[in-house]
């Protein structure tokens, strides 16, 4: 119809859609889902790294890790705010996260077992996130695009920091080198899965591409990530755990071995190693904090009786 055509024309002209602009319900719904999922990923993502804050091996690393996790909370805040411009409240989104209706990135359902996992997350997980997010800085929805610009700047700092942790380990004692290789072994495949199913199995992609919510396909982004990361591993003497990995001169990129999508689906279904622990931790924080949030509301109401009366 005419409205949809006009909307698509604005998109095609690279105009930004703003909160009060008319938009198709599907566009709004897709964005709410995607931004919410993204926000939840930042929040749940605080847990695997937070797990090592109290055991960081030096004060310098402790401070850097704390700052990183704090940044993630900040990203969560921007993103919830972006989603709120589409008429869904933070509380509503939180409830959806806790009762399992909303998803978050599957990668955070793997445990951080050793300190090297903190390096691997920064290097690989934040690295993959950046690949996903850089195109989002040009997303057709204005508030989301602007949030992503801030997010991307910090993420690339985190990525460098994670790589630096891995480099230090790779150049350290034999125990440390092993720890680094082991972390790479465990995080490599889940990181590749972060880009989502292969294009031929991806359901949401086409419409999102058309609306310029997405600008590259899953497989394109995954390829970029592999091509950027493999040389980084080589540079610090670590081995990517994929025996099929080979340089393809013709396409100017790496060919990689098959991804175990059954594992991906399993984790998505809530049956990964840490899914239940993650939600339980968030649920506990939410429940334990209920009296605090309630008190803050009650206090605000006491202090602003005039403002409230006027509402």
């Amino acid at each position, binding site marked *: 119809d005419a409205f949809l055509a006009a909307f698509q024309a604005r998109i095609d002209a690279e105009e930004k859609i703003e909160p009060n602009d008319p938009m198709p319900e599907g566009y709004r719904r897709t964005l709410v889902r995607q931004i919410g999922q993204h926000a939840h990923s930042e929040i749940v993502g605080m847990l695997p790294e937070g797990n090592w804050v109290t055991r960081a091996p030096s004060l310098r690393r402790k401070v850097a890790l704390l700052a990183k996790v704090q940044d993630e909370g900040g990203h*969560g805040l921007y993103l919830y705010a972006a989603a709120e411009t589409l008429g869904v409240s933070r509380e509503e989104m939180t409830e959806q996260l806790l009762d399992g209706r909303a998803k978050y990135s599957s990668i955070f359902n793997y445990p951080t077992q050793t300190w090297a996992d903190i390096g691997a997350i920064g290097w690989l997980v934040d690295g993959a996130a950046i690949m996903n997010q850089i195109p989002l800085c040009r997303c057709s929805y204005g508030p989301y695009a602007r949030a992503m610009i801030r997010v991307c700047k910090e993420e690339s700092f985190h990525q460098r920091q994670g790589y630096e942790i891995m480099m230090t380990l790779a150049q350290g004692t034999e125990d440390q080198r092993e720890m680094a290789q082991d972390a790479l072994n465990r995080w490599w495949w889940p990181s590749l899965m972060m880009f989502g199913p292969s294009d031929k199995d991806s359901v949401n992609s086409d419409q999102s591409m058309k609306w310029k919510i997405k600008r590259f396909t899953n497989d394109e982004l995954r390829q970029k990530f592999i091509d950027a990361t493999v040389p980084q591993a080589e540079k610090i003497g670590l081995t990517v755990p994929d025996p099929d990995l080979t340089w393809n001169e013709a396409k100017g990129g790496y060919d990689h071995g098959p991804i175990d999508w059954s594992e991906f689906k399993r984790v998505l279904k809530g049956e990964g190693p840490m899914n239940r622990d993650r939600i339980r931790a968030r649920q506990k924080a939410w429940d334990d904090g209920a009296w*605090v949030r*309630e008190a803050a509301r009650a206090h605000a109401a006491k202090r602003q009786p005039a403002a409230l009366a006027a509402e």
Partner: protein
Amino acid sequence: MFERLLEIADDHLILGHRLSELTGHAPTLEEELALPNIALDLIGQARALYEHAGIVEGKGRSEDDLAYLRPERAYRHCLLVERPNQDFAHVVLRQLYFSAFMAPYWHAAQESEDDTVAGIAGKAVKEARYHIRHAGEWVIRLGDGTEESAARMAEAVAELTRYTPELFEPDDTPGLPDPAEMRGEWDATIAHVFHEAKLELPEVPYPQTGGRAGRHGEVLGHLLAELQYMQRAYPGATW
């Protein structure tokens, strides 16, 4: 000088560590940002103090040697900072009590003839004032919030106030302020916040002390088991 620097450094490390335990478990998203922020300030101050203490001591001990490689009885922080994160009321009150002491302490330390101390103090005094504001606002909100929050706040006051006199134990280290002299300003800060929070500051007939002599509660050992784990398991490694 070394001993006193270590005491203050330990205060900041242990309190920063306690706050860092809340990562991912705070009651609001805003506090997921604010608490690590305070923890970062505190651990940052601890690092500067350990580094300076190591130089003053002159035995080549690094900040990590001092922070990680001492037995429990050699930690010299006051007992207040090791108290556990019982609930959010305890967390914000512990912070208010500590920062209301540190702000005037750092203010005075700006005048130290030791340039490093004066430099640390110049930055830290601003941070401590922000910590007072942040924690104080929460104490007020919770003290004058719901019935439950008021009861929890009162319970935190009943529990933690006995640990505050230790902050003011006199010390005559040259180049550092005498903690005893901060009492007046601390009283004024707390009185102001408690008035707004509808809380009463109890008398403390039996102060809990001993931290400066390394006499800590059982909670510390478990904190140290985590804190020291990597340094102990991989001695001599660089991270």
